[in-house]
């Protein structure tokens, strides 16, 4: 453990720190600027744009490959929610852990994990990051402290709490970023975890990705109290609602929450108000919501479009520069798709590896 801690760039933020100025220079004609909107630096805006675009294009490609039968089983796309994981990641530092459910491709990509390996895991091939054993729902990267996609709704919340416990026990100043959905927030173990986390003041930020639906069930149909940011109230855990479609707000709130957790004050809850554009998984026709509802979110709140407009109006980059980024991102995704299509199937002997450590243990 000590060795690992020593190799970390302690305190090094992954992107330049945010400039906390007011975004007052907004161009006319785009969606009304909110006064006091937190600002990102030019570098941060461009970083967020590229990351979110990578997730979007990757997921679109995964959707196509699913349609072509190259990906089987489950495939839950993150399209629409890109700002959440991107903003959180920008506010985190090297060594912080993250863990989530099955909607996990974006969490891998933003952590800087090789898209080829992610896509090959989706196609269940030997070159996948979990050797084709886990698939879409079970991404994992020890190197990047991504502790997995979990298929059991809510299970990651207690595991994430344990990750925080370990940091505190070892005296490391990292935090656990524990993501779960609005639907998952009705699992009992979430509240058992909240209580323990506050009781022991564990360094964990609970990020509720409230995309308004759990499969076909809207938040209102499943939750007696729909203000999820207050779900920690009875444990004295602070929480806030955040515009999860705007990476600036995500980043700002995440910085606050992470600082709170890192400073030893205990857990913090961020309810990210977000939206998934696609069905719950590739097999969901999403008949439980109107086309209008989806269209409104897409045209008025799209996280990528928002950053793009700001970049252009602030003249951080030109249309051509952005086209160039788009081109680079597409090339990465195309390469990942080719890699995942041509990667070998796992050998049958893999059935018996990795169950437990073999020989002599």
């Amino acid at each position: 453990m000590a060795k690992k801690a020593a190799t970390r760039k302690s305190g090094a933020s992954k992107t330049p720190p945010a400039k906390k100025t007011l975004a007052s220079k907004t161009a006319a004609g785009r969606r009304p600027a909110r006064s006091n909107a937190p600002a990102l630096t030019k570098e941060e805006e461009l970083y967020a744009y590229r990351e979110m675009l990578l997730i979007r294009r990757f997921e679109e490609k995964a959707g196509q490959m699913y349609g072509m039968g190259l990906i089987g089983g489950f495939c839950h796309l993150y399209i629409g929610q890109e700002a959440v994981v991107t903003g959180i990641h920008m506010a985190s530092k090297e060594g912080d852990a993250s863990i989530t459910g099955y909607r996990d491709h974006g969490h891998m990509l933003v952590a800087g994990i090789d898209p080829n390996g992610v896509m090959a895991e989706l196609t269940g091939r030997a070159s996948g990051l979990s050797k084709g054993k886990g698939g879409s729902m079970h991404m994992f990267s020890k190197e990047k402290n991504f502790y997995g996609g979990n298929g059991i709704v809510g299970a990651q919340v207690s595991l994430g709490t344990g990750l925080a416990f370990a940091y505190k026990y070892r005296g490391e100043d990292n935090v656990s970023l524990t993501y779960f959905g609005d639907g998952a927030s009705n699992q009992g173990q979430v509240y058992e975890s909240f209580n323990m986390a506050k009781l022991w003041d564990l360094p964990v930020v609970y990020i509720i990705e409230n995309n308004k639906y759990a499969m076909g069930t809207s938040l209102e149909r499943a939750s007696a109290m729909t203000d999820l940011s207050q779900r920690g109230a009875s444990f004295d855990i602070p929480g806030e609602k955040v515009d999860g479609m705007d990476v600036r707000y995500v980043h700002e709130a995440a910085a606050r929450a992470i600082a709170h957790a890192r400073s030893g004050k205990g857990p913090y809850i961020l309810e990210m108000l977000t939206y998934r554009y696609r069905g719950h998984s590739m097999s969901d026709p999403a008949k439980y919501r109107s086309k209008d509802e989806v269209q409104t979110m897409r045209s008025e709140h799209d996280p990528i479009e928002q950053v793009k407009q700001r970049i252009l109006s602030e003249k951080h980059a030109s249309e051509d520069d952005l086209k160039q980024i788009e081109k680079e991102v597409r090339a990465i995704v195309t390469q990942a798709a080719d890699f995942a299509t041509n990667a070998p199937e796992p050998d049958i002997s893999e059935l018996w590896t990795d169950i437990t450590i073999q020989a002599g243990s």
Partner: protein
Amino acid sequence: MAEITYREALRLALHDAMVEDESIFVLGEEVGRYGGAYGVTKGLIDKLGPERLLDTPISEPAIIGAAIGAAMSGMRPVAELMYVDFIGMTMDQLGNQAAKIRYMFGGQIGVPMVLRTQGGTGRSAGAQHSQSLEAFVMHTPGLRLAMPATVGDAYHLLRQSLTKPDPVVFIEHKSLYAMKEDVDLAEEPLPWGKAAVRRRGKDVVIITYSRQVQFVMRAAGALAGQGIEATVIDLRTLNPLDFETVREEVEKVGKAVVVSEAVLTCGVAAELAARISEECFDYLTDPVVRIAGEDCPISVSAELEAGSIPSAELIEETVMRLVA
């Protein structure tokens, strides 16, 4: 006679039982408006109303616990667990509550509920959505356990489950939902707790249940082409377990093979093999053979997934070796 699917047969059974018995209601995730993750309850909410098809929050322990409470008070809940893999989350409700209440309270009260769920491989659903966990249930006295392999049994076993005084765990197979058969549902079904002899032969008895019945029947067909005649027993319910039928058939033939999709170690096949060995020992010409799932989790890779469970070819080959 009409050709219907396994899925439709289940839906029909729920519908017919709910029309007859007002104390039956269904609760679970996505069972109402969505119609079930695998479409089993599709449309029932329109016919029977949202009071009887309750969409629940994602809260498995409370879903099963609430069903038990309602059952103790005279209702007949059908609680749906979307995947049998989530049974671990509800193992207290099932194992310490549902299974113990009649005994612990000296027979004063029972828990007449059905826990409907589905399991098994075949859809690249991965390690947490593909398991065959029937042994957990069978290992717990106090729980009934039904696992239909045919369209007719999907209907009749579910109807019968909905008349039982004790908790029934009803495990469907995810790869059978689209299976079609010509069935006459008005025909008198086999009684609850009776195994079905799906085919008779003089050389070997193959005992199985759930989707493996399909694989075993295919293997038996191929074996017949090579002059080997197999008796195939579909257990239908694992509790009650119709060991009488097993004994009768095994004693006639002297060779027994037990086939299960679940992992080999401590599985249903192990229990059956032990019991046949003990009780039919004098009639056996060979040791009882188990063919079961590999002792490993299920991979998402289609190749590894298929490789981790018995195939018709493996069954055929193994029986050939036993009989030859």
